């Protein structure tokens, strides 16, 4: 084992994000501490009764708000985090056309696929930071950990997109997961965030253990944790141990991508976490988990003449995809809470993405399918962060009292906030996959790959379940535009400019990817052709 310093350039985005996180944590040391007032109201005395009611302090904490001293201004942290995310994005894009190389003795790869994943992760982080800025400020809940944790998790995600060694995958997975668990619990109001984080942590650890078990079996069969060695062993004639390893590895990541029947955690976690975190989680974790799944299946088990039989794992993924699309869409239909609806819809979208993974098993359409997967992930990321950005603005008031949102709080929104309503409708239309939005082009790239892979039944199932999806997405539009207002309250807390910037960014991306998909598709194509196996 030799260490080649030049390899560090290959993981530059992850390094940049980690440096950003460390910088934020260090800067926190130099800020004056304030006696920990109740979270959410450290900004001075609630002077008016209205403001008191707005803050809705838990009983017994009245004294805490009388602590003298104004906490230091932490607003810079959002911008620092956003700046590091932007640098990460820029570096990923700048490296895009570099040749694909194996780094760290084959433990990771620096290739187009990984760079696109990094770019999507950094872009998601950038948008999420801006969304979170307005949200946390309005709730007076800005603390140093938030952005540092987000940066750490993003670093883990970037590494996941590049890892080609089971141990490296596991470490990157844990870096990402632990940070995301903490982010879920970040807003300590009521029981819901804590419950969500606990659920996520327990089930997530369970999935990690399953993954680790699969990795151990793979090591037992091949005496190596490198995915390339696994592939070599398969070419030499694999055995039952590798079958089991493949199944366990897939199951571990099926949990992370929220495929049915490993989806149980999603609604509670998405619902319990604060909306900007959920948006980041939905976009980032999905990208990273799918990227890793593709690496494991293609690099490790992708050889068609392997012991697993021709396209051995394809059947497994096909079943997962079919189940996920059906169950995700069906369960989303009865939801009254927009956050829970989006949670189930994210399960459904995992199903569509699994269709692309299933199509990759066939050599011919593999490139199409990978291109479709990357395009879909980027489109879904832009859309879902935007959607949760709108939810975050609506949720501000509810988050303080600790209850979940309900469709009734959306009724008549278009009369009060036409811009927000138009944005939300655009995101819903994109999630439903209607042109001319990113969601349609994403479905186009994925399903046509599935059709060329002869997975026509799966593709038909996909489009038919998306009709169910249309129903619940349209319901949001119905409430926003067509229902009379029931709670005539303006959005709380101001600071809409920052969130507005993020929302406009997401909306422009959604329309741009829908109207000019060629630009993004050619990036994805180049990335795929530089996929290092």
């Amino acid at each position, binding site marked *: 084992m030799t260490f080649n310093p030049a390899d560090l350039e290959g993981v530059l985005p992850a390094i940049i994000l980690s440096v950003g996180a460390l910088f934020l944590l260090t800067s926190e040391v130099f800020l004056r501490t304030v006696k920990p007032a109740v979270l959410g109201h450290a900004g001075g005395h609630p002077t008016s009764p209205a403001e008191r009611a707005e803050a809705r302090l838990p009983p017994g904490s009245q004294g805490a708000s009388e602590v003298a001293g104004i906490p230091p201004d932490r607003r810079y942290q959002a911008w620092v985090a956003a700046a590091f995310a932007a640098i990460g994005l820029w570096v990923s894009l700048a490296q895009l056309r570099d040749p694909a190389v194996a780094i760290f003795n084959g433990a990771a790869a620096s290739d187009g696929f990984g760079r696109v994943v990094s770019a999507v992760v950094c872009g998601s982080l950038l948008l999420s930071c801006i969304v979170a800025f307005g949200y946390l400020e309005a709730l007076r809940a800005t603390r140093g950990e938030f952005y540092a944790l987000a940066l750490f998790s993003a670093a883990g995600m970037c590494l996941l997109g590049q890892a080609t060694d089971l141990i490296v995958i596991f470490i990157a997975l844990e870096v990402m997961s632990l940070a995301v668990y903490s982010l879920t619990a970040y807003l300590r109001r009521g029981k819901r965030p804590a419950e969500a984080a606990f659920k996520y942590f327990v089930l997530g650890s369970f999935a990690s253990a399953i993954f680790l078990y699969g990795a151990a079996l793979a090591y037992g069969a091949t005496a190596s944790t490198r995915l390339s060695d696994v592939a070599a062993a398969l070419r030499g004639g694999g055995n039952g141990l590798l079958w089991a390893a493949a199944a366990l590895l897939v199951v571990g990541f099926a949990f992370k991508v929220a495929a049915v029947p490993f989806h149980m955690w999603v609604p509670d976690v998405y619902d319990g976490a604060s909306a900007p975190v959920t948006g980041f989680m939905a976009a980032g974790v999905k990208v990273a988990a799918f990227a890793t799944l593709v690496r494991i299946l293609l690099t490790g088990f992708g050889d068609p003449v392997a012991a697993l039989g021709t396209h051995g794992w394809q059947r497994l993924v096909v079943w997962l995809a079919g189940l996920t699309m059906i169950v995700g869409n069906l369960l989303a239909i009865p939801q009254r809470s927009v956050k829970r609806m989006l949670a189930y819809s994210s399960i459904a979208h995992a199903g569509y993405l699994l269709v692309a993974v299933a199509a990759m098993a066939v050599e011919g359409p593999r490139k199409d399918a990978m291109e479709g997967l990357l395009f879909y992930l980027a489109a879904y990321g832009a859309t879902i962060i935007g959607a949760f950005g709108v939810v975050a603005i609506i949720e501000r008031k509810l988050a303080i009292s600790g209850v979940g949102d309900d469709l009734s709080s959306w009724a008549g929104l278009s009369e009060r906030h036409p811009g927000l309503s138009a944005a939300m409708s655009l995101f819903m239309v994109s999630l439903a996959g*209607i042109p001319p939005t990113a969601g349609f082009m994403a479905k*186009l790239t994925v399903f046509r790959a599935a059709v060329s892979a002869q997975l026509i039944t799966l593709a038909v199932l996909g*489009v038919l379940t998306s*009709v169910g999806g249309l129903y619940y997405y349209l319901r949001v539009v*119905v409430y926003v535009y067509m229902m009379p207002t029931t709670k005539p309250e303006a959005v709380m807390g101001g600071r809409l400019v920052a969130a507005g910037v993020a929302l406009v960014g997401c909306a422009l991306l959604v329309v741009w990817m829908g109207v000019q998909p060629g630009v993004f598709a*050619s990036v994805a194509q180049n990335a795929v052709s530089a996929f290092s196996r």
Partner: protein
Amino acid sequence: MGFEGGGLLSLVIFLPLAGAIVVLFLPRGEGGMHKGVALITSIVTFLFSLPLWLRFRPTARGWQFEQKADWAPSLGFGYHVGLDGIALLLVMLTTFLAPIAILSSWKYVQDRVKEYSLALLVLETAMIGTLAALDLVLFYVFWEAMLIPMYLLIGLWGSDRRIYAAVKFFLFTFVGSVLMLIAIFWLWSNSGRLGGARTFDYGAVAQLTGSLPLETQRWLFWAFALAFAIKVPIWPLHTWLPDAHTEAPASGSIILAGVMLKMGTFGFVRYAMPLFPHAALEAAPAIGALGVTGIVYGSLMCMAQTDMKRLIAYSSVAHLGFVMLGLSALSAEAVNGAVLQMVNHGVSTGALFLLIGYLYERTHTRDLAAYGGLAKVTPALAAVFVVVTLSSIGLPGTNGFIGEFLILLGTFIAPMGTWTIFGGQVSKGVLLSVVAATGVILGAVYLLWLVQRVFFGPMRKAATHGLPDLTFREWLCVAPLLCAILVIGVYPMPFLAASLLPANDLIARVRPRAAAVPRPQGARLFLPPGASR
């Protein structure tokens, strides 16, 4: 090619969208500014579409005003538009009806004028684009893009049960189109067989599909046909139509009946039938039978209605049954008649919805029981209504006669084979045309009964308030429609000439032996100039 050719067509397609962008940046607020921009835009669009009509050469083969440009070459689709005679007729119908529709609800729509104007303009672009597209993805994008503005038109400015109707409309039409999308992907993934890159281009795909085996053609045909059949709508898929029509505002009904339903029949003419000729020939008698069922069923339903708009909606089912019958008969007379009947139905039913909208604005009821004796109060309105009704019935001298006559004649002589009924051989064409002819009588029954109940007899509740007669603005809307009714009725040749060549091409492709079948002498009633027999 420049402005003379495709540039002009693209201009007509995107002018309304440009108007929509102008509306988007106008300040919100009351006043007719938004509607004014919409009206001016649609009138200018109509003026720009006139050169299309004047410069069109009905005897030239191939696409006219063709324009091709790169859109997303990396994804295999491009911007490719062009017109044949049939598409031209419908484009003219669209640009002709759009200003009338906008003007029709000038007074009725008073809230959210900005969104209203936006929806109408975007809808116009989508409709013209659907007709002009020569690339399957471009077509699908425009096709689906029609849904959202129409959904908003029904759901926002409709009457009591508007949300139900809007969601039903959207879901029904969406279900149909997703299967078409899968079929389009299949065509794409197999278009590489001809050599060269895979493509979504209509011309290239058409070369591939003609030679496909019947089984393949069959499922592709039905995937396309389902989408179009729901849009037409063909009985028994029509159930969304009465709801959508009844709840939509007058402008929405005019556009919906006048243009959008024709997208379904146009889809049959342009896509489902010529792309899959063997399957289309096989399915033609069945589709004809469904059309005839729609004629009789729609007519009978009309008689049972108490809501005027619902009555006209069911009459649309009957009239479009005629169009589908004509298309499935596949003889020159029938297909030309069907194309003309598409235009006729747009003009006549559009006018009927317009006039009922006027009645509704005056009385705020659509219940037939409330009407009676209106002719004494509003003589001009009554006179116009009678003329439009007669055109819808198909009285000689009006446009409706020409279309229905040609369809019935063409079906009667169509060599569609025979059915065995009660042991005897009955020509399918004869049987279908005989049953369809009863629809003409039934049409006279329900429409004349409608006129009698509304305008004659004793004065009822709605007539007693001293209603105003047609205003200048209303005359402005009605007069062009009346002119169109009479001009087409008296001198249909220019309109028939436009559709002649594409109709012959369609027949030659679907039923290549038809030309060789000797015609009975009496059948040569119809030989328009330039017919290349």
